[in-house]
Every structure is written in C-alpha cells, then in structure tokens.
C-alpha cells in the first residue's frame, strides 16, 4: 500500500482534486456574490444542469469548446435574469423558487437530452494548458500549473472577487445591501440594481460551472451534476461568505473526495468500506466547520426580500 505515497500518485490525486473542486468553486463563488447582497439561490444545481446541457449541445454541434463555454455561461446569465426577476422584483420566497428552478433544470435537460441526442456522443476533452515556467517546477508544476484554463479561471476569480468585494464601490454596495438594505436605500443605492447584478453574475458562474463539469466529463448524462449545485451552496456557508473561505471549502471537498477515490481504487480502503469512505468529504466539511463556526455571522438579511415601507 506504500505506493500511494509515491510522488506520482500524490500529484495525480491532488491534481484530480483540484479539478473536482473547480465546478464547486465556480458555482460557490457565484452564490457567494448573490448571498453577500442578501439573495439565496437554491436553484444553482438546476442552472448548472442547464449550463452543462447548453455547453454540451454547442460542443457536440460545433466542436468548439470556447463556444460551448460561452453557451453555458450565457444560459446561466439568462437564468440569472429570471432568478433575479423572481427573487428581487417579485420578492418570491427564495428557497422555494430555487427548488422550482432546480426541478425545471433537471426535467428540461433530461427532455432535451432525449430529444436531441438519441445516442449521446462524447465531446472533445479540455486540453491542459501548462503555464510557462511555472509548470516545470517539480511536482508543484504538475499539480497546479498543468491544468485546463477553466481551472485557472476559477482560481483566478478568488482574488478578483475578493478585491471587488473589499476595494470597490460596487463591492461596498453589495456588502451594504446584504447587511442593511434600508440604509443603502436611504443613501440612494439601488438595492434592486445591486441584487440583480450579483444574482446574474452568480447564475452566469453557475452556468459556467455546469459547462466546466461537462467538459471534465466529456458527455452529458441525466442529472450530470449529482447535487454538486447544492454542495456549492453549502460551501458558501462553509466559506463564511468569503471567496477565500469558499475556495478552502471547495479544495477540502475536492481533494478529500479525490483522496478517497484514489485510496479506494488502490485498495487502501477495502471495497466493502468504500461507501462509508465516500462520506468523508461531507463529514469532514461539517466537522471542519464545527470548530470555527461560532465566529461567523451571515449577511443580516440573507433570504429576505427588501421592501421599502408604504
């Protein structure tokens, strides 16, 4: 069993974990933006499915992964517009409308898959893009810098969104709107506009997450996401509404998942215990949070539509 600890396996495991984490990360970063402004979107899983299917359709028909990525993101954007209209303008109960979107995405993608792909085909895989210089660092290079460009994009978004939230007027407005929308409103910040923007951004990222997942797998299948959208929402809570924390959660979840699968495949975990071992990412995520949770406060008006009195 010692061969697990060879560098090659370790590197492959971490690299695979990073890939596993990428769709979570994208979707969770998007959800973070929405939640920071006070909007909970439980429809992430449905939007990921729709984005993944859009990407699949375009990739299968055109062969272009760039167009496919754009399609997934674009579908997310449209769903974002709808979600924002429902949650912000129509002030619907956010938990329930999100579940509606989830059911819609789940059902519609299955219908479309049947209709458009009587015999599904695989699409071309995402090529790894080694980053010049960095990729030749021994071990580290293969773990972190020999990934596909969507992985880089996802991880690049972490500092970018951190900067946006903390250093820009837009980010300041997002934080204000999620904490005290009435106060933001009274100084002329449009709660509606801010929430629309964060929800649309969040859903676009969910669509992109779906496209990413699709390209990592190479084919669309019924319920492709397997609850990844819900996990992404959970990781926002794990990350305490901070991009860095969300990244930590995604990596924890992805790498633990990868390690478990690897140990199972290499027989370190006996087959009889493999289902039990598969619980590890979920259990560890909860336990990790138990030790730190007391310190975090959620955005004060999370999930509550804003209504100016009278």
């Amino acid at each position, binding site marked *: 069993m010692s061969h697990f600890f060879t560098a090659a396996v370790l590197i492959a495991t971490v690299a695979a974990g990073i890939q596993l984490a990428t769709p979570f990360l994208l979707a969770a970063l998007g959800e973070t933006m929405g939640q920071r402004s006070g909007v909970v979107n439980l429809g992430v899983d449905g939007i990921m499915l729709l984005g993944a299917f859009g990407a699949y359709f375009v990739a299968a028909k055109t062969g272009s992964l760039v167009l496919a990525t754009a399609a997934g993101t674009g579908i997310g954007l449209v769903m974002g517009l709808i979600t924002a209209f429902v949650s912000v303008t129509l002030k619907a109960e956010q938990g329930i409308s999100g579940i509606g979107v989830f059911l819609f995405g789940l059902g519609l993608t299955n219908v479309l898959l049947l209709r458009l792909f009587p015999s599904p085909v695989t699409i071309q895989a995402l090529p790894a893009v080694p980053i010049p210089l960095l990729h030749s660092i021994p071990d580290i290079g293969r773990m972190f810098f020999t990934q596909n460009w969507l992985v880089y994009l996802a991880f690049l978004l972490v500092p970018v969104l951190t900067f946006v939230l903390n250093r820009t007027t837009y980010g300041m407005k997002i934080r204000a709107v999620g*904490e005290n929308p009435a106060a933001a409103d009274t100084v002329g910040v449009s709660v509606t506009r801010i929430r629309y923007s964060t929800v649309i951004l969040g859903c676009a990222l969910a669509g992109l997450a779906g496209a990413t997942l699709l390209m990592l797998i190479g084919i669309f299948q019924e319920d492709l996401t397997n609850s990844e959208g819900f996990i992404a929402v959970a990781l926002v809570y794990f990350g305490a509404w901070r991009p860095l924390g969300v990244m930590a959660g995604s990596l924890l979840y992805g790498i633990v998942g990868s390690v478990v699968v690897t140990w199972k495949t290499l027989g370190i975990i006996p087959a009889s215990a493999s289902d039990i071992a598969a619980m590890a990412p979920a259990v560890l995520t909860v336990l990790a949070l138990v030790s730190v949770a007391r310190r975090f406060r959620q955005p004060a008006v999370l999930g509550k539509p804003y209504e100016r009195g009278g």
Partner: protein
Amino acid sequence: MTAAARGSASAGQPALLEMRGITKRFPGVLANDHVDFDVAPGEIHALFGENGAGKSTLMRVLYGLYKPDEGEIRLRGDRVTITSPAVAIEQGIGMIHQHFMLVQTLTVAENVALGVRSSRGPLTDLGRVSARIRQLSHDYGLKVDPAAYIWQLSVGERQRVEIIKALYRDVSLLVLDEPTAVLTPQEVRDLFAVLTALVRNGLSLVFISHKVHEVLELSDRITVLRSGRKIATVGTADTTMDELADMMVGHQVATVRVPPDRQQGPVGLSVSDLRVNGDRGVQAVRGLSLLVRSGEIVGIAGVSGSGQRELAEAIAGLRQPVSGRIEIAGADVTGRHPRAVRDAGLAYVPEERMRDAVIGDLTVAENLILVANADRAYARFGFLRNRAIRQHCRQLVAEFDIRTPGLDTPARNLSGGNIQKLIMARELSGSPAVLLVAQPTRGIDVAASAYIHQRLVSQRADGTAVLVISEDLDEVMAISDRILVIYEGMIISEADPRTTSREAIGLMMAGVPSGLPAVSQG
C-alpha cells in the same frame, strides 16, 4: 437661543419647504390626515406629539420613503415629487432616523461614502473620505474615528456618524427624528451645540422630540400632531410647557412623585462582587455590589456604556458572569438559565425592548403570555388553555390601557409606547419579587411615561423590590428612593434624591465621587 430673531427672519423669505395636505394611510391606520407643514430657511422647526401621532410618517414621506396618498411638497417654491431617498438627498434633504440607517459591518468611512460618487471611479476612495470626515469632525465638534466599524460605536457616536453622513452630502434641510431619546444629558448638550452650529451655517432643521423642555429650548417654531392631524403651529416664544402638553394629549399630565413613606422589607435582590464581560471581551462590570429591598425603588444612574446593560443581562441570566454572586429572594441564581432566574422571582424589562422583549410577528395576546405560557394557569398537560389566556390578556389590555385594535393584532403594529405598556403588563402580571427595568420610558410620550412611572410606584407599594436603570437623570430622580451611581462598571456612590442636587449626581456620573458620605448599603 435667538429664536425670536430667527423666527422673524422666516416671515419675509419664501419657505424652504412646504408640505400641503399630506395624507398617508396604512392598513387600518390613518397616519397622516391632511397635514400642512413648512420650514423657513435657517429655522429649527420642532415636531411634537405623542407616540403614534404620525411625526415619523410625515418626515418619511418628505424623505421619499413613503409615497403619500394625497398632498404636495414644495421646495424653495417649486413643486417636487420625492420618489426615493436618493431624490431627497439630491434636493438637499437629509434625515437621521429614529432607528439609525447604518450598516453595522461597514466602517464609519464606508458608511459615509456609500452611495456617493468616488473620486477613484470604480475603486473606493476611503482615504479621501476619511480626511473629509476628520475635517467635518473638527468643524462641528463631531468626534468619531473614520476607521471604526459601526458595531464598535456607542449610540451617541452612531448619531454623530449619521450627522456627518448628511453634512458630507451637503444637505440644506436636516430632519432629526427623536435624536435625544437615546442620549445621556451630557450627550444632549453636545448635540444641541452641534445643531446650533449647523443652523449658524445656514442649515434648516426639523427636530422631533417628546421632551417639552428640549423643544422649548431648541426650536423656533413648534408644530403639534395628534392622531395623524395637525393641531397647531406656534412660535416657541409664544407658548408654554403646559399649553404644549395640553395640545399634545388633550389634557394636562401630572408628573409622578414617589411618596416618601416606605416600608422596607427583606432583601429582594442582592448582587455581590459581580464581574461581567462586555461584548468585546473587556470587563464591563467590575466588582459591583448592590442590594434592593422589597418595597423600595432603587435607581441606577450613569452615563451610557458604564456597564448597565451587562449588569442587567447578568442578573436576568442572559449573560454569564465571570465571578460574583446574584441572589433573588434569597435564592442563588448566579449563571443560571433565564428560566430559573424568572422562576426565582425576577421580572425584567430590557433596554432593547423591540429586539429582546417582544416578538413583532406574534400577536398581542401571544406576547402577553410569552413568559407564562407553560404555567399551570395557561397550559394543561402541555396544551394551551386559550379561554383562560384570552381572558387574562383582555384584562391586562384594559388594566394597562394598551391601545391595540385587538388581541390578535401583531405586536409590531403597536406604537412604541404601547409596546412598552404591553411589556410592563406582562412582566408585572406574575407579582414578581424583583422588578428590573432598563430605560423604562425611552422614546415614550409624556402621558405613557407618567402611566409607567405610576405602575412602578404601585409595584413598590405591593412589596416588589424595584431596580430602575436609566440614563434619564430626571426620571431616576423622580421615582427612586435611593440612587446608585454607576461608573466604569462599579457603584461609586449612593445618593438620596430628596437631598442631593441634580448637578451633584451629574458630577458623580462623570466619575467624581461626591463629598457626601456614601451611605452604606442595606
């Protein structure tokens, strides 16, 4: 004040603001009924009236928070439609709300900068904003640290942030909704100085208050509202305290005084060498001891933030003490669950009553049995006895004169004074051994205040040990048998309100123990 001088100035010029026939309805309530209101340039115009009279509503209409059902607004003679606060700010109107409109998790500078165009485009320019804040702080004596988070600030500091926010936006008319309700006497003095300086610089102010002497001291003119209707607008110089009170409630209000005779009984509440940490981990109560006997009212006076809140919460079981001992009617309740403390005989009216003592979405009746819902009288085998409960609640509503459309009205819809009465009704209904009341009349109109004071005194007569914590020195002086002065988490002196002057106690509150010999406790 040069009220007369400024008042005459307004006669010649066109009004800065004119509101005509403003009507605003809420489901079941006519909050403003064809109200006329105007403000002259450079004037301080006070809005006066009892709880629920419609003062805040009128100003919220002006600020674009409520859309009036009828009526028009003119600014400098031009008719304007104010659809949102952003429009109001653009028109030079600023408002400081009864409940501050600040984002707790942002810094002072961020709160000030929010919604104002940044000099660095999409990036924040907090350095520049902070510099301007310091400038304004300096100009008007508004001391505040731009880098501090709002949640770290005291109430008085938050109010200063609100004023700076308005000044930063160059307003010409500033509305202050009950700005003094949450301030200590010293802070009120400071605020008045700031407001006077503002007017000197050409601003006009609308000042809302329940306190007659403040209104008389500060304003040029006074408009009185009652039940949504305007009763009158009078020049301050031309009216008297009695006339105002009469216009406000329709009759004279007698102030309550505690009868001197008292029969002291056994010790009701005993606190010894108590130490309690505050929210930020610093010790807020530092070795405090006190005794309250049944049949006496003990007042705790002190400036805001001297450890009053932590003391009250520790007694009520809501905050874990670091050390010390708390006894209620002889039973040790130190660190016990709030339920156990209540079972030992405590009734408690907290300072943050809207947050801590009522549940706005529950009905009046449900709030009245929030504490006693599991008592034998109201629940049998875990099932609520609705008949008994409703009868009990009807009785309390009548006895405490709680003005509500019905028992099933959500408590949220009641005015502040009536919510306070509801809480008193509930807390007193169990004949407690100890009654702990914090800021009993904060934000409450004169009539309701008088009623609450009267209840406290009659509770004393029934043999309850009453501990009143208040930052309103007048109140403490009026109703206490003994006054304990709290300073930095300790009782630094005790005074007899009949023999000690207001000024002497004010000095003690500032940390100067009086020359009078401290009466030993008990």
